[in-house]
């Protein structure tokens, strides 16, 4: 009776082994990393460095490339490409692709991670100079528009960096890329963007074929001092639209007023072609000459963000289509309250301006987009 039947004990022992195995921990949480497609840690090419464009010197770049217009863009692009390390060059010069061109956002890189290109923070002062010269040649020259507006939007991110202590906001985190090879022949796009900014000018055989989508936003909306200057990059767009809306007669205002509420723009990033089926609001052709002119002035604050000759071409097109363009708004016409919104919807032209609650600092802040139904991404699909 004292002998243990070993075989009888074997089965329970086997069960116990299984039981012990079941006690293995399921792995510490987080060991598996984020979900596929998740953001993960911010890539190292976001250096979180401030690069105040105002202080960047373009003398060397301008001396090396003395041509004007598209020829200068090609010259500067070649200069930059020659100076970059192979690793950076591989990220700067990409094949032309509408898919990559669509990778822009109103969000900072902390949140939106799909942007392509090399960041300003990765570049040497000489390379920064070339980029600044490129921007100046490709954009408008008016104060508060074009290049000057871009410089202020970058400064605003340095302001957010200082105010929120979140280093992910930084002027050095804005990105530049060439989609397609800048050359006298062929298609390419000058891609420059980051938080609250997208610049996408497309060229074919040396001529601009698209200046959009062009996104601008800024937080805070109030004028701020940063990087040695006053910054209020969206003030002119706002003032022009508010003036145009306030000038409408009460009857026109009530026709222009949308019943729905807009807390953001609707044809935003990654929302290609989501235009309304029918145009809402008041037809610009039905407005008086003065009121039409005020609206055109507002449109100029967007079209004026590209180089003057190309801006003139686009403006002529929009002027020709102006009578069949509609303007509508939601909220108040002064565009100073949260969720105030204005839209310009023409045969080609599309502009949205949305005044939103402050996200990072108290107050309000605008998001705005200029699109062209036929010329976004140069009309390429």
């Amino acid at each position, binding site marked *: 009776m004292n002998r243990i039947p070993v075989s009888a004990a074997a089965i*329970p022992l086997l*069960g116990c082994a299984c*039981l012990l195995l079941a*006690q293995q*921990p399921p792995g510490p949480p987080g060991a598996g990393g984020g979900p596929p497609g998740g953001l993960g*840690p911010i890539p190292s090419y976001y250096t979180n460095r401030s690069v105040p464009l105002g202080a960047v010197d373009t003398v060397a770049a301008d001396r090396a490339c003395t041509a004007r217009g598209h020829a200068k863009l090609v010259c500067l692009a070649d200069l930059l490409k020659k100076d970059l390390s192979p690793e950076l060059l591989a990220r700067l010069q990409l094949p032309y692709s509408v898919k990559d061109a669509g990778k822009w956002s109103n969000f900072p890189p902390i*949140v939106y991670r799909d942007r392509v290109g090399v960041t300003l923070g990765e570049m040497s002062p000489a390379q920064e100079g070339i980029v600044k010269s490129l921007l100046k040649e490709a954009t408008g020259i008016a104060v508060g528009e074009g290049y000057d507006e871009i410089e202020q939007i970058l400064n605003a991110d340095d302001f957010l960096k200082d105010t929120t202590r979140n280093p992910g906001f930084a002027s050095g985190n804005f990105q530049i890329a060439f989609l397609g090879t800048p050359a006298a022949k062929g298609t390419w796009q000058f891609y420059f963007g980051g938080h609250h900014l997208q610049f996408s000018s497309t060229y074919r055989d040396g001529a601009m074929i698209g200046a959009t989508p062009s996104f601008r936003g800024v937080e805070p909306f109030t004028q701020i001092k940063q990087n040695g200057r006053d910054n209020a990059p969206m003030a002119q767009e706002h003032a022009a639209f508010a003036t145009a809306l306030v000038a409408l007669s009460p009857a026109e205002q009530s026709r222009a007023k949308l019943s729905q509420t807009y807390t953001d723009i609707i044809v935003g990033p990654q929302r290609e072609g989501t235009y309304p*089926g*029918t145009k809402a609001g008041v037809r610009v052709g039905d407005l008086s000459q003065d009121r039409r002119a005020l609206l055109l002035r507002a449109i100029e604050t967007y079209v004026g963000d590209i180089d003057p000759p190309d801006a003139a071409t686009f403006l002529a097109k929009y002027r020709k289509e102006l009578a069949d363009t509609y303007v509508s708004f939601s909220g108040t016409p002064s565009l100073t309250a949260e969720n105030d919104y204005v839209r310009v919807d023409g045969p080609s032209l599309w502009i949205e301006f949305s005044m939103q609650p402050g*996200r990072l600092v108290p107050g309000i802040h605008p998001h705005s987009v200029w699109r062209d139904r036929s010329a976004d991404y140069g009309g390429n699909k």
Partner: protein
Amino acid sequence: MRWHLGWLAAARLGVAALVAVMSAPALAHPMPNTEISISLGADSAVFDVAVPAPELRLALPQPWARTADLLAEPQRSAVAQYFDAHFSVRAAGGVEVPHVVRSITRWEAHDPDVGSYEELRLRIEAPPAPGFDPRNFSLQYSAVIHQVPNHFALVYLNRDFYAGRIANQGPVEFGVIRYDFSRDAIPAFEVTMASGSLWRGLWAAVSLGFMHVLGGLDHLLFLASLLIVAPLRAQGGRGWQWSLFQGWPYTARRFLGISLAFTLGHSLSLLLGAYELVHVPRILVEIAIAGSVLLAAVHAIRPLFAGQEWKVAAGFGLVHGLAFSETLTGAGLGHLTQALTVLGFNLGVEGAQLVAMACAVPLLYVSRWRWFHVLRIALMAITVVLALIWIADRSVPAFHVNTRIAQRVGQLDFDASRFAAGDILQMQRGPREHLQTSLEHAPGGADARLVLVETLRR
């Protein structure tokens, strides 16, 4: 080993919730959008809707919408009516099936890009109805979006009984409900699931119950501590010592009696708990379980309630059953689904218990040897130490839970480094705290648990 300080509690209490957060869909957009989690039962569906109140306030037609407390009457009823009107479920033939707004609660949500904001969570149920197939229907949801057309709702699949997703395994991304500007309308969201089967749901419940017990060392040690004295009899002066093997009839009677009593106890409370007829705060249940292990282990060293083991097994079985039932609560998927889940889960629990009992059999064999006393006391001493660790570990959060309850929804004010994030998540009672983005923004190599803790404390 899992019984590492804090891990048993953290793992069993919180891993499900944590995993839910970790695997939150990449689709998630750092904007205050709506999120709809759909759970599909055998004959019903549940919709857990999380709506950012600031956007809802823009859409409610009433003059008080911008500022009033949305959960005070009469606003609460108006909010319920609003969702009732902007929510409909249509069966495959196009016939609308009934739905009911079951609950509305308020939460504070946090988003790194938006900051803190008020969030309402609604549970809307589509109960069993003639012609309603929860695997093939269309959802017409227009709340907020009809008035704020840039707003959108991300849709997730949470549970799907027929596909074997029976517990909170974490929602998977399902789709999005958006305003279609080209048609000036909000398209219906079509739910068409691949055919599943009742057996897959039942089998998932069995596996869940089985693994729940086998993975829970505390349940096993409690039972083992009671069964180790089944062959023995209290003896000596005032019955303060254990005898050796008392023969097979005596052993078998006690062994089966204790096991059966434990089964009856935990089955009863599992049933009561799963149907939410009884609710005991989870943390108290966990402490009581650790206490039950301690009591049983001490008894196995020195007899405390010799001959009464079955009563202890039954009594604490009730407590262990409550812990089992935690996994099964909150689905709201109707009686059929719940009954099948509870049935399968309990079968799994019994299966695991049989395995545990089989493991105790070798101990019965060796209980006639003289050195069995040494073995028994050594094993039980280890168990006592473990039980004490569990009690201490589980009591720390319990203290804080009280302050948490007092605050209802708000900031957590405890020393977060003291216990695992799983516990904290558990206290938050719900995985949807926008933690995913915080994790993503964390520096590389950061401890995920600490990031969660930081986010919760913010």
